[in-house]
């Protein structure tokens, strides 16, 4: 696939924008699916994310990885949508002992990404968000704390619980 022409996208040339969309749509939609509650929500995030990218493209300084910059916009859009959808707090507090005794799943069998997304979508939104940010996006706990406006300790505890919950769901999926 050819690299999109950023200058043409900034000028608002529709053909270039469409090429840009075609280039990133698959990866970004996979990202949206991991954060969203459903496919419809993920499509809404994708739509809004691309509109933001085209709007803010001229702000991209050229420093750093461009795809990373685009991903960041989509992650922020997904988080904003989750916060909009939830009237209560984004993070769910669960007791640690709920998952402390969960067995470690056998990880030798490969789970298709499609199924993995389904498992992720079954996680409570707060867990899913921290899990995504830390495990898949590579953010540190201080960064997550800043993004979600929570404490570093809360970020760590949420991740711990998210992983426990995820393990349980994964185990269920593998044994089914």
């Amino acid at each position, binding site marked *: 696939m050819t690299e999109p022409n950023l200058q043409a996208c900034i000028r*608002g040339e*529709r053909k270039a924008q469409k090429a840009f969309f075609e280039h990133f749509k698959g990866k970004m939609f996979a990202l949206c699916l991991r954060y969203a509650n459903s496919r419809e929500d993920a499509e809404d995030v994708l739509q809004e994310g*691309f509109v933001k990218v085209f709007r803010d493209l001229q702000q991209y300084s050229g420093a750093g990885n461009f795809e990373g910059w685009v991903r960041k916009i989509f992650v922020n859009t997904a988080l904003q949508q989750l916060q909009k959808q939830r009237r209560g707090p984004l993070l769910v507090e669960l007791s640690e002992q709920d998952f402390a005794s969960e067995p*470690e799943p056998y990880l030798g069998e490969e789970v298709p990404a499609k199924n993995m997304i*389904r498992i992720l979508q079954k996680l409570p939104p707060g867990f899913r968000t921290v899990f995504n940010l830390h495990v898949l996006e590579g953010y540190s706990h201080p960064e997550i704390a800043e993004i979600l406006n929570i404490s570093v300790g809360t970020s760590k505890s949420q991740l711990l619980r998210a992983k426990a919950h995820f*393990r349980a769901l994964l185990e269920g999926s593998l044994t089914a």
Partner: protein
Amino acid sequence: MEKNIQDERLDDYVKGSFDDYAEDPATDMWERIEKQLPEEEPKPVWYAWRHFGWPMVAVLVILILMARLVCVEGYYEEKLQKISAQQDQAAQNTTPTPSAMPSFPINDASKKPTVGTKIVEPENTSAALQKTDLKAKNILQKQPQAPTPPTKIAKHGENKIEANKKQALQAPASPKPLNNDVAQGLPAAKSADPALISAVPQVEKQGASATLQADSLAAVTIKTEKQRDFQALAQKSPLLSVVNLETPNTVTIPTKKYKEASGWYMGLFVTPHYTVEKTKQAVRPGSINPRRLFISQQERPQVSSDISLRVGKKINSRFAIESGLGYQHLNRKATHLARFEYREGQAIQNPGGVESRSFDYDLNTYSGSASVTLRMEVSGSDAPAALERVGALITSRESLQILQVPVLGVARLGQGRMKAVLKAGVLGSYLIKNSFEITENRLENNKLRFRGQDGYAVQFNRPQHFIWGYQLSAGAEFRLTKNLSFSAAPTLSGDFQRKDPQQGRLPGQMAVGVNLGVGWWF
């Protein structure tokens, strides 16, 4: 420590699962995004030049060349008309009245008359004749290079005059009608009437004899159609004899025998076009009052082309009838968005297996309605609730091979090589092949998935093979030669409204394109 290792394993495991994973969103996602983007700014001139410059130049050059051809043709037509008019004028001058006689400038050898008057002198006008001889001699001396007409009586001016004199005196007393032989030259002198010969002094008074050239005396051509008039006039005229002299500059146009056109022509036409289709809504089969279940729409205008060989016959100078045989291969891609509730599905007996249900709907295809069955099974441990929405996004492709028979009325307007061409008529289409397949399916509900091999089935419901339509075009035709012509015309074609056996409207397609053709006229 062990916990950390487990965490790292899990992280790597999850990351590995998502490595370069990509999934396509809904097919109409770009259209949805595009609606939210600001309008594209008008493109500057340089942009147009960068993208369309060379094609524009090519089109311009072709137009200039065509215009040049038309202008050159017009130029020569005008020239020929002028020459023809001159010849007609010359013909009229063969019957002058005395007062209308051309007055030639005296002693002006440089202005040689193009249409002269030959006067045959009588014997008893020796003084006048001597004067004329002298003038003729002078002119011959001054203009040795003067062009000579094709027929000559004698080589030298003096001799010619002498010869003419002799012949005039030997001519019979009564005038006899001129004929074609006379018109070719010398015999005009033989028909001179002595009564007219006696009137030569009057000519001298008008100065005509003073400017006669010796060479022009020999070039005698009389328009055949004027012979009778001339004869009548000659009898009344006081002149000795008045005949039209052929101009030395007469243009001879070689012409072939004109073969009348038969009015038949044959043409090969190619029409690249966009096919667009109105959005249709499919229904659940068998419903008396069907609830709309699916939105079926053609994904985007399809680019296609048809080719046809046609034969035409002119009825008159403007109108013709045209018909022939054409072929079109059309791929019709459509997206169907399903909206079911889980309870609307029929349970599939699957002892020991996972819970499965089938969902039916009627889909409008180009050749008629088709019954589509989607079979889904529960993907996880939880089955959807009865009222839970089951959405499916189906992309289908219909491949059509169509034979077309147009019957068109043709009007050609204008003159010259370039003509406006209007065509209108009916188009009979016969489907020789029609195949349907679902190329992509996606469920919106994560609790369900399509069953492996038998995830869907399609059954045509009495497909229609013959479809009536219309075709309109308006463009230009350029006649390069008598037999060869080229044409280009924007074309609009479509289907008349059709209904399936359940009286449901079938999708009517409309194609917009450019009909390009080359024709051979017999």
